[in-house]
């Protein structure tokens, strides 16, 4: 067919001969080989000779190229375009990522050299074009070409085997030392120094104290007299001081009277960080360590504090000790430093987000407790609601305040006026203090200080009902913020009742969920953006990625819609997905893919914001893809692809969308 005139240099002289085999190998192959190590060492003649033996193949994304222990290699793969990942699968089906390889890299050199089947599983993560160099040609180069053997063998020994997350952290944050890893690498069982010491529940207080003195321990477990294996409680030094000596209790009283029961347990194989979270979220200092349903020992907050220096736990304790609201201001500003340590130590982003919300919750609890003391008790019960990302426990750093107050329906007019007056003042002061703690005001005024969002339970129920019945754009926006509420402080039962109401009304209103699903699917996965970025290497596509709106929000929205549909009470996105998978509403497979995708993006976001804080900038969600490593780009791509799968689920649930 005819070609429009293009820009092109002079053509080579036409081949005038008759022989078919005279055609030179396409420049594309020679050019490729000329530019990759160690082929760049070869002379032109040799390159052309090799190029004639090469073939080109194409493998759509997701094609398995090699299977460890099975595939016999007939050629070396040289990646012309695209990318692969290599991984191993252990006996228990656990997949460990070994490496990503992209353009210009090779696959299969080691098995060819050693004459064994493939040593790794290799799978394409993008549509991939490969040049295939026959095994014989490759072996000939290894044997006869100086530098070849050295190049490939050196690469093997230097290859650092890393999981994706290790790489991610190493790339982004410097590591201090290996000790930092203790919180995440050490299992709770490793901290247990002696077998569990216990007394029967009918032993006297004095007998318990004597046993503690003998074993030099600060706490002792209590078991049911009929069964020494059945731990029913725990007694600590503090119990002896507060409940016995200070209270003037007889030493002959049974220990059951002063024990704390039940004992909170932690699995022996849990990492210490999990134990720490558990202690902090339930405000206790002792956990029974459990292994195969047996208590094998006790760990204390002290044991864990010894593991770390700049500890979240110390901050947690300081918050609890504060006697003035002003004293909380500097404490909340220490949160980023603590989080930085956790990132460096290798915490998963979901754990980091949990830690942030635990610390924020503690500041809020302390602040409101002190404020109540200052202002006197409220006329009716109330609950401070946390909304949006706070409600989902997905804050990173200094996200805007999103809160509200819900209070019990007043009994009469006088009580109504008293409640209104109190909570208006209460909210104003609380918000003011929170700003001083470093939590910025919500630009949309979704805060308890706005009278519209400081209302009795019946009004809240009416709000929710009207939003669900008439889903206009503004109502849908409200829903995304308000329906992720959780109790932050105060009477939790009020929040529970509102949640139950919401479940009742959304269960009936399919049409409402349909609107939400439509909104959700309007945000398409930013795959095209990413694809272009991978292809365009000249840095023309300098536009940034809003990782919150484009990457994370689709997961949040998806989880919310399904949670509302199936009356899942959790507000946290990962927790919602977990419950949905447990109850069989989404497949295990989708759950684990979504989990990994969400974690990875959160991680990227947290690291991005930490770096901004380090540079003295305001943290935001705009990530410059130019700053991402190849690995991060690929992982991000994988994450975006999950969004399409989520939309697929929504399409099945809401076929008319």
């Amino acid at each position: 067919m005819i070609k429009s005139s293009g820009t092109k240099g002079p053509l080579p002289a036409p081949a005038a001969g008759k022989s078919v085999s005279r055609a030179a190998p396409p420049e594309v192959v020679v050019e490729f080989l000329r530019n990759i190590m160690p082929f760049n060492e070869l002379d032109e003649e040799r390159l052309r000779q090799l190029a004639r033996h090469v073939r080109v193949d194409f493998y759509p994304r997701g094609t398995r190229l090699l299977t460890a222990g099975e595939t016999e290699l007939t050629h070396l793969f040289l990646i012309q375009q695209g990318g692969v990942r290599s991984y191993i699968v252990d006996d228990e089906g656990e997949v460990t990522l070994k490496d990503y390889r992209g353009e210009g890299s090779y696959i299969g050199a080691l098995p060819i050299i050693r004459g064994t089947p493939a040593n790794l599983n290799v799978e394409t993560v993008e549509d991939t074009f490969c040049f295939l160099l026959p095994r014989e040609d490759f072996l000939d180069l290894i044997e006869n070409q100086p530098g070849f053997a050295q190049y490939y063998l050196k690469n093997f020994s230097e290859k650092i085997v890393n999981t994706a997350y290790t790489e991610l952290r190493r790339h982004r944050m410097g590591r201090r030392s290996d000790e930092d890893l203790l919180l995440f690498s050490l299992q709770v069982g490793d901290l247990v120094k002696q077998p569990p010491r216990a007394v029967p529940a009918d032993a006297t207080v004095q007998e318990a104290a004597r046993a503690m003195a003998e074993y030099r321990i600060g706490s002792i477990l209590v078991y049911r007299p009929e069964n020494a294996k059945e731990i029913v409680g725990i007694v600590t030094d503090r119990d002896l001081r507060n409940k016995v000596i200070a209270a003037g209790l007889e030493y002959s009283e049974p220990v059951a009277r002063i024990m704390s029961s039940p004992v909170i347990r932690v699995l022996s194989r849990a990492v210490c960080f999990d134990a720490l979270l558990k202690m902090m979220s339930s405000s206790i200092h002792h956990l029974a360590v459990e292994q195969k349903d047996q208590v094998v020992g006790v760990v204390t907050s002290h044991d864990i504090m010894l593991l770390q220096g700049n500890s979240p736990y110390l901050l947690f304790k300081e918050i609890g000790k504060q006697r003035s609201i002003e004293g909380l201001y500097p404490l909340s500003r220490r949160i980023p430093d603590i989080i930085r340590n956790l990132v460096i130590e290798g915490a998963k982003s979901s754990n980091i987000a949990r830690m942030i919300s635990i610390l924020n919750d503690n500041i809020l609890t302390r602040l409101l407790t002190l404020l109540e003391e200052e202002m006197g008790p409220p006329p009716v019960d109330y609950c401070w609601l946390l909304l949006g990302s706070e409600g989902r426990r997905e804050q990173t750093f200094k996200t805007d305040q999103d809160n509200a107050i819900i209070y019990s329906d007043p009994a009469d007019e006088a009580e109504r006026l008293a409640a209104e007056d109190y909570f208006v003042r209460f909210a104003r002061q609380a918000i003011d203090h929170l700003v001083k703690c470093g939590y910025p005001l919500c630009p949309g005024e979704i805060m308890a200080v706005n009278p519209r969002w400081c209302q009795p339970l019946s009004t809240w129920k009416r709000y929710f009902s009207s939003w669900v019945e008439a889903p206009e754009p503004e109502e849908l926006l409200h829903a995304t913020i308000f329906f992720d509420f959780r109790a932050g402080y105060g009477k939790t039962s009020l929040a529970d009742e509102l949640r139950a109401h919401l479940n009742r009304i959304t269960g009936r209103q399919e049409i409402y969920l349909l609107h939400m699903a439509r909104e959700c699917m309007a945000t398409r996965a930013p795959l095209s953006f990413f694809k272009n970025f991978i292809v365009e290497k000249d840095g023309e596509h300098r536009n940034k990625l809003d990782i919150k709106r484009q990457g994370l929000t689709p997961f949040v929205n998806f989880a919310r819609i399904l949670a509302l549909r199936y009356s899942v009470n959790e507000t946290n996105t990962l927790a919602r997905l977990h419950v949905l998978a447990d109850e069989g509403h989404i497949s295990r497979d989708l759950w684990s893919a979504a989990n990994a995708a969400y974690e990875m993006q959160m991680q990227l976001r947290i690291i991005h914001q930490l770096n901004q804080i380090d540079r003295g900038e305001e943290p935001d969600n705009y990530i410059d893809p130019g700053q991402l490593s190849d690995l991060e780009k690929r992982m991000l791509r994988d994450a975006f692809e999950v969004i399409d799968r989520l939309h697929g689920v929504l399409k099945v649930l809401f076929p008319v969308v």
Partner: protein
Amino acid sequence: MAAFFRSLFRLPAPHPVLLENRELFRDFDQGRPLGEYTFVVCDTELTGLNRRRDEIISIGAVRLRDLQIVPGETFHRYIRPRNTDPNQATLIHRITPEQLRDAPSIEDVLPDFVRFCGDALLVGHFVAIDMHFLNRAARRVLGGTLSNPGIDTMRLARAYKEARCRDYYGYCDQSMSYNLDDLSREFHLPRFKPHDALEDALQTAYLFLFLLKKFRHGGIRTLKELYRSGRTLDRIF
């Protein structure tokens, strides 16, 4: 009968290479797995698009075996046109008049090309045009047309895009371009320099390989199935 027509139009007796070519396709079976066929992806450059007057001035082609491109087996020739003023070609292709003057004639090139094709299927982007000009020359030079079946990558690309967007979003935007360059960009294929028969043939080969493997991923195993996937479109257009 055939001899009668031949004498009527003063056509030469079929060239031996053409008889060989016919023999190769006497019992052509479309039911074999795709990997068992050989394909030759080709592209021709023309002096213009007039179906009766214009001529081929270059042919580029590359072979596929075992569903892999074999870059070591390519074909690339310039051809001296018979009637057209060689100066005209420079305007279109930037091929110099000297290059065309020194090039062999179609009489020399065509038998080579037919031999190069052998028992392969001919693949091209908008292959009908290439086939028209090849066959027009073949009738005159070789006394008949080529028996190699053709496969059109443009049609396959259409079928692929249609199937793909139907799966995802339930509707299909058919306003997109099916130009080789645009498709290569859309599918993120490695790129070749346009307006050169061999480079274009390679570009088409990459497109063909891409589509072939994508179709195979989607369960298309034999040549017959591949044809059928392209043909469903005839009903739509």
